[in-house]
């Protein structure tokens, strides 16, 4: 190298060192917080961090939960998130903030919203962004007031010419919506305002999650000017018995095709719209959605037949997934879903490693042709992280009882897509009619339980001799004895994922609505301590967290396997090592 190149590199290194130092200082000196009662782990996480992700969003340290106010503004994607500046458990929550141009690489900014006034002095909880007709984004969020009551506040950008929208100001009119003796709203169950939408009458509507005893409900508020809000006499939707409705989301989807629809849209001429209503259930810690229609006259959501907004509704994800929220990406005309995945380790482990909580890879979401479920697929941008190290296998037979190692890939940070094919489906076992809970079936039949078809799938984050592995696999059953209908089950089994005893190693399961006569696809995004699995091209999604002690880094292996009694064909298997992203 020439002397000139060397000194340029040297100068560049010095420059980045100074910038890095400056950014860290800025973050540390910016805020003074009143509450100091929590474990103040302000040191950087220790050097040995086998579980931090390579390409899943997470802050450098401490606790993160709900994604907040996702949006795109002037070509820049924003993600805010619930963050504890003081430790690795929930508490002292503020809105942390990062931006991106590609939903994969992120640049951190100072927290955007933090306690500063009576209407949020005890906490700045979840909320959403609404883009006003003039293009300005505003945030509605839940604040905790001096009496520990939940109220709704507005914040807007201080400086619209800052492309990163780093600073936000709060109206002196806050709180805009609050529980009182007249409206009878439960002051400890009133939170998570959604993106608002415009009605035909030019009035805004927004919904806020709540409950009255065991009735979960979405309280509707309307407004002409986005500042003065009136509670509607009736909620947009409710359900008796489901308990508190957290993080509601309400948005239109196009009946046919996969493009997104803006939240206030009435649809194009000749376009049929359906609406999706979604909640996070406190009771079960899962996210559920229903498909239906929006009665604009009565301001009511009407679920389609077969859907009930309770724990029987379909889930976005059948693993660890909560507090999810969508936004309309106007740049690429798609609707994108963010979801929070917490840890499956003990709190002591989290305190030791200095962090807790990740976001899943953002997913494009659209209505299936059948109109009966949503399809999700990781945004295409994540595929840019795929390196040229591709392991490709074609037309291999996975004999009964066999395993095939996939070499040449960084098995702890990979993207795998595999297409299976089964033959002689008349040999499938009949499913026990009492087996209606897929998670229960997966929990009770581990990989050593042999079906005619299955278990077959992948073993990920596996140690060389399989002391540790996480298996993601299918089983295929006949619906009834002489039936031509089949049931496809997908499992994510963490029971052997780690030699460590005190992790949560719950097994997850889901039915996949696909025709097993056709090839059966499976995709897995593997990232050190998270596995996101997609069955049937996004018809069933399962996210899990694992913490192997052996299958770490270079000692991590990837296998395709078939422990069923029938052979299974691997039509195609692609495995890419994934580059790391700049995740925070």
């Amino acid at each position, binding site marked *: 190298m020439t002397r000139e190149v060397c000194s340029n590199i040297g100068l560049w290194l010095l420059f980045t060192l100074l910038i890095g130092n400056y950014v860290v200082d800025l973050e540390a000196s910016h805020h003074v917080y009143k*509450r100091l*009662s*929590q*474990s103040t782990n302000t040191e950087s996480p220790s050097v040995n961090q086998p579980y931090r992700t390579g390409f899943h969003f997470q802050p450098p340290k401490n606790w993160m939960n709900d994604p907040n106010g996702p949006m795109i503004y002037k070509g820049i994607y924003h993600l805010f998130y619930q963050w504890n500046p003081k*430790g*690795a*458990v*929930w*508490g*002292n929550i503020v809105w942390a903030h990062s931006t991106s141009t590609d939903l994969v690489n992120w640049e951190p900014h100072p927290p955007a919203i933090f306690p500063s006034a009576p209407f949020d002095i*005890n*906490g700045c*909880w979840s909320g959403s962004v609404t883009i006003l007709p003039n293009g300005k984004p505003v945030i509605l969020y839940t604040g*905790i007031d001096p009496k*520990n009551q*939940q109220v709704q506040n507005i914040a807007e950008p201080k400086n619209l010419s800052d492309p990163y929208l780093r600073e936000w100001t709060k109206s002196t009119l806050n709180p805009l919506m609050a529980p009182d003796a007249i409206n009878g709203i439960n*002051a*400890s*169950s009133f*939170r998570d305002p959604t993106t608002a939408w415009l009605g035909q009458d030019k009035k805004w509507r927004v919904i806020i999650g709540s409950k009255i005893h065991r009735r979960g409900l979405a309280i509707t508020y309307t407004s002409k000017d986005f500042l003065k809000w009136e509670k509607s006499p009736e909620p947009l939707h409710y359900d008796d018995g489901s*308990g*508190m409705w957290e993080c509601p989301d309400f948005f239109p989807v196009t009946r046919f095709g996969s493009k997104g629809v803006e939240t206030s849209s009435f649809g194009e001429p000749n376009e049929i719209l359906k609406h999706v209503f979604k909640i996070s259930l*406190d*009771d079960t*810690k899962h996210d559920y959605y229903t498909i239906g229609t929006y009665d604009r006259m009565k301001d009511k959501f009407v679920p389609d037949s077969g859907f009930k907004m309770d724990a029987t509704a379909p889930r976005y994800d059948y693993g660890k997934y909560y507090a999810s929220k969508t936004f309309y990406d106007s740049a690429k005309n798609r609707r994108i879903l963010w979801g929070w995945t917490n840890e499956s380790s*003990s*709190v*002591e482990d989290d*305190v*030791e490693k200095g962090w807790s909580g990740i976001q899943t890879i953002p997913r494009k979401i659209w209505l299936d042709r059948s109109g009966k479920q949503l399809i999700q697929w990781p945004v295409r941008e994540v595929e840019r992280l795929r390196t040229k190290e591709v392991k490709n296998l074609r037309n291999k037979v996975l004999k009964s009882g066999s395993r095939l190692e996939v070499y040449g890939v960084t098995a702890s940070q990979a993207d795998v897509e595999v297409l299976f094919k089964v033959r002689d489906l008349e040999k499938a076992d009949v499913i026990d009619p009492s087996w209606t809970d897929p998670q229960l079936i997966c929990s009770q039949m581990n990989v050593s339980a042999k079906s005619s078809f299955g278990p077959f799938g992948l073993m990920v984050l596996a140690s060389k001799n399989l002391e540790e592995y996480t298996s993601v696999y299918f089983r295929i059953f006949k619906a009834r004895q002489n039936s031509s209908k089949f049931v496809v089950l997908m499992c994510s089994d963490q029971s052997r994922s780690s030699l460590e*005893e*005190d992790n949560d190693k719950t097994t997850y399961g889901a039915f996949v609505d696909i025709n097993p006569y056709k090839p059966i696809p499976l995709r897995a995004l593997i990232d050190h301590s998270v596995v996101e699995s997609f069955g049937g091209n996004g018809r069933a999604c399962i996210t899990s967290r694992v913490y192997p002690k052996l299958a770490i880094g270079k000692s991590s292996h990837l296998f395709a396997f078939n422990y069923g009694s029938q052979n299974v064909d691997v039509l195609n298997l692609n495995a890419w090592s994934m580059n790391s992203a700049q995740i925070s």
Partner: protein
Amino acid sequence: MKLIVMVMTMMMISEGSMIDQTCKQTPDFKLCVSLLNSDPRGSSADTSGLALILIDKIKVLATKTLTEINGLYKKRPELKQALDQCSRRYKTILNADVPEAIEAISKGVPKFGEDGVMDAGVEASACEEGFQGKSPLTSLTKSMQNISSVTRAVVRMLL
């Protein structure tokens, strides 16, 4: 006079029955009742208040167990490694789980209270396992596991 006695008796019965009603829905009725009755706030507390009392009991038990652990270093020096692990785990209960649960329940987001309370049981179990069958803390571990599961049941009533 009779009316006053009747009203007072009814008040006493109905006060007792809030604790009774609550504790019936937990895995250990007797333990629950004895913990709540032993606190002066118990008789007039709502469900949140009862949960906070139980979390306080977790705090007290964790502190007591830490004291016991500290004492064991001298008496049982061969157990140092397991004791170190346990010390970290009980400190986590005191410094992370308990404050998280108190803030969460006070502010109306009980699910994080449930997380904290459940973890107290997890940490106690993990500590116990570190002794590989020869634990000097077994009775304290069991107490924490029991209180944790009773408290969790009460917190879940707030969800």
